[in-house]
């Protein structure tokens, strides 16, 4: 006999309000239904009432973890409409900030995953590590969360001393190799909670259309930074870590290896950063009528923006956002089938869900 266990919308295992209805037989989950919409702020509608300066500040607040990615994608699509090209130094600064954001997001996720495993020491270690990244982000942008770095035609702030950031990159890399990766891969606590649970096979991943680390952990080698390079990614050398297993451990490993790759990209971007202007100046911006789309690899996967502008309009006529969690969300159902009830909080967190992005 099956029974339904509602999880959420306000549940200690969930970072954000959403509801998971689990249909169980004994301890085994037979089906799951996801209810979202608690974070719906109507941002896409609000964007149609804001001008091109205000809309950047508004879209930055779609998500507090990947705030830079949203402005980067929006600015890239608005640059297509205005015909402005950012100078090379601005592209490098965009890469640096995007990679720093990926670092802090992945370390944060590792912390939350450790907490859901019941491994609170690791949670604290990860958050301490994350503060190193936050220090650098604060030194560059002046804020810990909403960096407001991007503008149409470049970035707002320069990185005065790129080599000072390298010290943080080295310290982070050392700590990852010395503590975080060995503990997550070899400790029996982490292994017994992660290995073999929440499996998403390659075929299922393809049919669900998952993106980002969730796809790469199911053996799909996709990464927009390599496949469709934006900003200065075409000048960087890096690998795309892929794991074939498709379980929670694979997702953990992919993110841990991505942290190492991000460090590699940061080191190249900081040493190769060309001198020059950081934006195209304060001249009046004229928008061409039409629609422009832009895709960016966010920490959670692919983000797509589609911005439409009418002739001589002050405000965009449509700003459409497609977030990675929207693509990854349906795969949770296939991951929890047959899983134990106690494993479901970790399984649903393993896609690194961000429902404030998805609901908007």
């Amino acid at each position, binding site marked *: 006999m099956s029974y339904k266990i509602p999880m959420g*919308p*306000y549940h*200690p295992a969930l*970072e*954000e*309000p959403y509801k998971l209805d689990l249909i169980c037989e004994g301890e085994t989950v037979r089906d799951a239904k996801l209810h979202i*919409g*608690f*974070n*719906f*702020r*109507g*941002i896409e*509608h*609000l964007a149609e*009432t804001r001008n091109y300066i205000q809309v950047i*500040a*508004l879209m930055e*607040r*779609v*998500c*507090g*973890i990947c*705030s830079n990615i949203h402005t980067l994608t929006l600015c890239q699509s608005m640059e297509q409409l205005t015909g402005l090209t950012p100078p090379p130094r601005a592209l490098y600064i965009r890469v640096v900030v995007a990679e720093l954001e990926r670092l802090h997001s992945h370390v*944060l996720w590792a912390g939350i995953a450790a907490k859901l495993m019941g491994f609170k020491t690791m*949670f*604290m270690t990860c*958050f*301490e590590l*994350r*503060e190193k990244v*936050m220090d650098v982000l604060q030194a560059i942008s002046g804020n*810990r*969360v*909403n960096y407001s770095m991007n503008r149409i035609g470049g970035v707002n702030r320069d990185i005065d001393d790129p080599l000072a950031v390298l010290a943080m990159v080295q310290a982070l890399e050392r700590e990852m190799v010395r503590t975080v990766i060995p503990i997550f891969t070899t400790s029996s606590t982490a292994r017994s909670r992660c290995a073999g649970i929440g499996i998403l096979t390659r075929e299922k991943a393809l049919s669900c259309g998952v993106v980002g680390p969730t796809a790469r952990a199911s053996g799909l080698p996709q990464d927009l930074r390599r496949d469709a390079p934006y900003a200065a990614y075409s000048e960087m050398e890096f690998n795309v870590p892929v794991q074939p297993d498709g379980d929670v451990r694979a997702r953990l490993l992919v993110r841990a290896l991505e942290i190492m790759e991000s460090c590699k990209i940061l080191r190249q971007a900081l040493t190769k950063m060309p001198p020059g202007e950081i934006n195209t100046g304060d001249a009046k911006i004229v928008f061409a009528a039409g629609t422009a789309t832009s895709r960016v690899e966010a920490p959670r996967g692919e983000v797509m923006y589609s911005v439409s502008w009418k002739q001589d309009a002050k405000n965009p006529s449509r700003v459409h956002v497609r977030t990675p969690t929207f693509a990854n969300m349906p795969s949770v159902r296939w991951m929890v089938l047959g899983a134990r009830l106690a494993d479901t909080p970790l399984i649903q967190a393993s896609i690194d869900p*961000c429902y*404030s992005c998805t*609901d908007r």
Partner: protein
Amino acid sequence: MNLWNRLMCFSRRRSPWLFHMNSGSCNGCDIELIASLTPRYDAEQLGVRLEGSPRHADILCITGPVTRNSVQAIKTVYGQVCGPKAVVAIGSCPATTNVFIDSRTLDGPLNRHLPVDVFVPGCPPRPDAIIQGIAAAAGILAERAAKRWPAESVMVPMADPESACDCTKCDCTKEDKSSADTPAREVQP
């Protein structure tokens, strides 16, 4: 104040337990709240603890601009926190609805629904500011612990009937509005 009350005040001030609630926030304030409890800022050494259940908590930390979908949940959870209790609104969103002002899917700001004790403004506020806000709320909690928890404190003030009803579009008179809207409503725990 007798010895028992003094002891209660001391313990309320020294170990405020939090329940964190996201009413449509962008995660920025939520992560900063968690960051304020972790080793760098370490509010846990002050006895602050994040609890999983509102029934164990003293202070309700609310982030976000209060979406329509979360209003009822906020009121329910507020009713579930045992008295004496305090409410801390973290971020600019619960204070003013921030950049989301004019959105039709919001029912904010927060003080239309709950009596807020401490506002911590900022987008998002720094962890230092959040800790200061929690410390202020712990002081308020200790004051409340000194008194008997009054029954009317669990009453939730309704929104001002003047602002709730747009008189340019509806033809109701003032008497109608005041009779239709009771000034306070009790929250079912």
